[in-house]
C-alpha cells in the first residue's frame, strides 16, 4: 500500500457519499451537494494520479483538475438557478416535483 491508495480510497468514499446523496435524498440542493462531492472526488483522483503517476512533469492531472474546478463552478451556478426556477414554479425544492417528462 502506498500513499496513492489512501487518496484513491478517500476518493471512493467521497464519491460514494455523493452518490448516496444523489440517490437517496429528496431535496434538490442536497442532490446538488452530492454532485459537487462526486466531482471533487474525481478531482482528487486527478491530483493523486498526477502526483504519484508515472509522468508528473506533464502536468496533465493538474490541468484536468483546474478545468474540472471551473466546470464544477459553472455547474453549481446553473444547477442552483434551475433549483430556484423549480422552486418558483412548484413552491418546493424537492427533486421529484419535476415530473413533466412522465412516460
Amino acid at each position, binding site marked *: 500500500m*502506498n500513499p496513492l491508495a489512501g487518496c484513491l480510497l478517500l476518493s*471512493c468514499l*467521497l464519491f*460514494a457519499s455523493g452518490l448516496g446523496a444523489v440517490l*437517496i435524498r429528496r431535496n434538490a440542493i442536497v442532490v446538488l451537494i452530492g454532485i459537487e462531492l462526486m466531482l471533487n472526488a474525481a478531482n482528487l483522483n486527478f491530483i493523486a494520479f498526477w502526483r504519484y503517476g508515472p509522468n508528473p512533469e506533464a502536468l496533465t492531472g493538474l490541468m484536468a*483538475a483546474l478545468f474540472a474546478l471551473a466546470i464544477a463552478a*459553472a455547474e453549481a451556478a446553473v444547477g442552483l438557478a434551475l433549483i430556484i426556477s423549480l422552486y418558483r*414554479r412548484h413552491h418546493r425544492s424537492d*427533486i421529484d416535483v419535476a415530473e413533466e417528462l412522465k412516460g
Partner: protein
Amino acid sequence: MNAVFALLAGLTLGAALAAVTLRNLVHAALCLALALAGLGLIYIHLEAEFVGLAQILVYVGAVAILIVFAVLLVRGAELPEGRVSRAPWWGAGFTALFAATLLWAVVRSPVIRQATRPAPTVTVRAIGDQLMRDYVVPLQAIGMLLTAATLGAALIALPRRDPNSSAHQPTPP
C-alpha cells in the same frame, strides 16, 4: 499514508458525510464547504499548492456561498417534506453496490502496490505556460462555458413575467 493525510482525510470524509446526511440545509452547505476546504488542504499536502488554493478560493469563497444563497432563496433551511426520496432503499442498495465495485477495483488494482516517486517541482509559471500553450483551446472553451453559464443562470433564475405564477410576489400596480 502519514498522519497529516489521515487527519485531513478524516476531516474531509466526516464533513462530506455530514453534508449529505444533515437535516438542516445550511448546516449541510457549511459542511460541504468544510469538506471541500479539507480537500483543498489535501491537494496542498499532495504538493499541488496552486490547485489547492484555487480550490479553496472557488469552493469556499464562491460555491458554498452560492449554495447558501440558494438555500435561503428557496426557504429550505428546514426540510418541510421527508428527508429521503420515495424509494430510499433502492438508492442505498445501488450506492452500496457502486461503492463496493469501486473499492474492489482500487484494492485489486496494481498501482497501489508500486513504489512512489519523489514529489515533482511545479512552478506556477509552468502551469501558466501550459495553460497558454498546450491547453489554450480548452482554456478558451472554459471561458466560453463560464460566460454561457453565467448568462444561462441569470436567465433561468430571473422571475418570469407571468401573472399566473407570480402569486407569491407582489404584482406591480
